[in-house]
């Protein structure tokens, strides 16, 4: 009987083509949408975690309250001791110090006079210790446009856009004018090792990257750091793990009476990221719900149209001796076949497109020029195991629900009524 129904479906395009196309489109949109949101939100989370928040971040309580202002006068002190403690207590985590600072970058001429100058945002990370993993985490090696990685504490990388604006070349000296941790003026000569472009507009506009040792020297920060960021190498952000770590750390170190005591916050509790995480986690459910409701309505309608067109066939089948229940079940069986066919095609197209965008990406840099969101200019989808089934199951369910509703009209009709309509 299944073979018989399948033959009918394949031969009668009006019975199969539109529903299959509908399911295909819906499943494709769901699979692609899921990989898109997964990739875009995941990419944004990863970029934000790597460059700004870490999976967890330790700051002084006072620094945490004013974190947007990067108040290095409120930075953590005795950082090395704290890092040693963290490495011992939480060996699965990787902690590394960072300093964010603002200032002016001044490019002198051969006489030491200012040749060009501009504002800059500095990010000091551990570039020289391979175990810190910062070069890989921030993809610095891949981002170098000209020159090389810094090899000494007093070498910096300058954003390519800023370097062109200042007309500075690798090998030349750049003076950073900022303020020390104690509030006095800081002038420090760095040598430009290279230029970088991260593909993140917010960073590429005017950032300099330096080794934390050089920054400590320049800003007179000794054994201090604005923040310590923590990561789980090789693992994605997991809020439960991060929160458990933060709770434990804060129970040990944080003192509400001491504004310089360290406090740990999770990625989710920084920069409004919890909202993004919630969206990311519930996106699958949202997509699937929208898909099932919309597709069921569309397929209900097409099922009704198809059933009306097939009244004659239903009448004949009733007369031949098929029961109403059997006809209804055969309609459902047909819908399952349509759902499976549409879902297979839709998933295949959705996953293929998803892979294509994952590999090639879509450049939204022109739209992000003035953006302050920590987001890659090239958005990529992320095809995961979920992408393969997120549209598939709803595709079959929506088709089944649509047909079930449409079929009730037929099922409830009196046999003789159907039969009479057959004779009209």
């Amino acid at each position, binding site marked *: *009987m299944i073979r018989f129904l399948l033959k*009918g479906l394949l031969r*009668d395009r009006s019975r199969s083509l539109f529903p299959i196309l509908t399911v295909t489109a819906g499943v494709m949109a769901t699979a692609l949408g899921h990989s898109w949101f997964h990739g875009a939100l995941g990419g944004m989370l990863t970029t934000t975690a790597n460059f700004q928040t870490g999976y967890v971040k330790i700051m002084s309580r006072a620094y945490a309250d004013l974190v947007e202002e990067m108040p290095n006068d409120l930075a953590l002190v005795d950082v090395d001791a704290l890092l040693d403690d963290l490495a011992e207590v939480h060996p699965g985590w990787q902690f590394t110090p960072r300093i964010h600072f603002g200032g002016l970058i001044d490019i002198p001429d051969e006489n030491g006079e200012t040749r060009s100058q501009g504002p800059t945002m500095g990010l000091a990370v551990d570039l020289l210790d391979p175990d810190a993993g910062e070069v890989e985490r921030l993809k610095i090696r891949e981002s170098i446009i000209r020159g090389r990685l810094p090899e000494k504490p007093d070498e910096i990388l300058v954003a390519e856009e800023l370097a062109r604006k200042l007309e500075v070349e690798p090998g030349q000296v750049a003076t950073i004018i900022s303020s020390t941790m104690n509030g006095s003026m800081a002038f420090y000569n760095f040598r430009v090792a290279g230029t970088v472009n991260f593909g993140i507009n917010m960073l590429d506009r005017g950032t300099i990257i330096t080794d934390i040792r050089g920054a400590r020297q320049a800003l007179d920060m000794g054994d201090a750091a604005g923040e310590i960021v923590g990561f789980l190498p090789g693992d994605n952000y997991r809020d439960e793990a991060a929160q458990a770590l933060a709770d434990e750390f804060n129970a040990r170190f944080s003192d509400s009476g001491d504004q310089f005591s360290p406090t740990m916050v999770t990625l989710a509790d920084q920069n409004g990221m919890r909202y993004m995480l919630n969206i990311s986690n519930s996106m699958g459910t949202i997509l699937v719900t929208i898909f099932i409701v919309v597709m069921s309505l569309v397929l209900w309608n097409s099922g009704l149209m198809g059933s009306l067109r097939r009244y004659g066939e239903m009448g004949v089948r009733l*007369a031949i001796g098929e029961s109403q229940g059997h006809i209804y079940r055969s309609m459902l069986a047909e819908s399952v076949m349509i759902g499976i066919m549409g879902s297979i095609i839709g998933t295949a197209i959705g996953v293929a497109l998803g892979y294509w965008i994952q590999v090639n990406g879509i450049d939204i840099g022109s739209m992000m020029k003035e953006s302050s969101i920590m987001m890659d200019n090239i958005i990529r989808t992320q095809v995961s195991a979920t992408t393969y089934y997120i549209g598939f199951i709803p595709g079959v369910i929506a088709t089944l629900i649509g047909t079930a509703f449409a079929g009730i009209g037929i099922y409830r009709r009196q*046999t*003789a009524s159907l039969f009479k309509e057959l004779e009209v």
Partner: protein
Amino acid sequence: MNTTTQPLIELNNVVKRYPMGTTFFTALEEIDLTVEKGEFTGIVGPSGSGKTTLLNIIGSLDSPTEGSARVLGNFIEKLSHKAAASLRNHHLGFIFQTYNLLPVYTVYENVEFPLLLLGLSADERKKMVMDALEWVGLTDKIKSRPAQLSGGESQRVAIARAVVKKPELVLADEPTANLDAENSHHILKAMVRLNQELGTTYLFSTHDEKVIQYLRRKITLLDGKIATDEVMTPQGG
């Protein structure tokens, strides 16, 4: 089911009314009718006389408002939907005025369909379908679709579909209404032959003189009542 000691069809005081606003329209009124096995009988009468309604009740597609309709030992008015479907599936064959073949299926598949519902094996189905197509002379058209057939050929496929499971009773509603004289005679001769060879009982609803020529019994309906019930001498078969 007991079909040996009882008539094939036995209607007692059958009334069929349809609601029409606040009143009722009476389609059949106090019909008493008995049909024995092997008969070749026609119900004739003008349009609206109740022929199709009577055929629908006998075919278990409808049930009487009053009275009792016993077909092959089953009281139609007491049958559930499922039991009625089972009766049609196992024991009845239908032939329609408009053939009503399933357009997306081939001749072979159209004839095979009732056997699929009976759950027969592929080998059994093949033999029975080929036999039925041979009876109606269409073995060369098994792969054709209904759209590729003439009216006469389509109706022969419909006959093959009705008789393929060798039912006790075939109900034919205006089977020649859409056919020319030559095709009508061809069809009717096929049915007479099957009636004689297989012992199948035929009950027609018709007002076509060409059909009436072949009947051995003619029941005339007028305004929902049996006006005459005559034994005929067939002229065509």
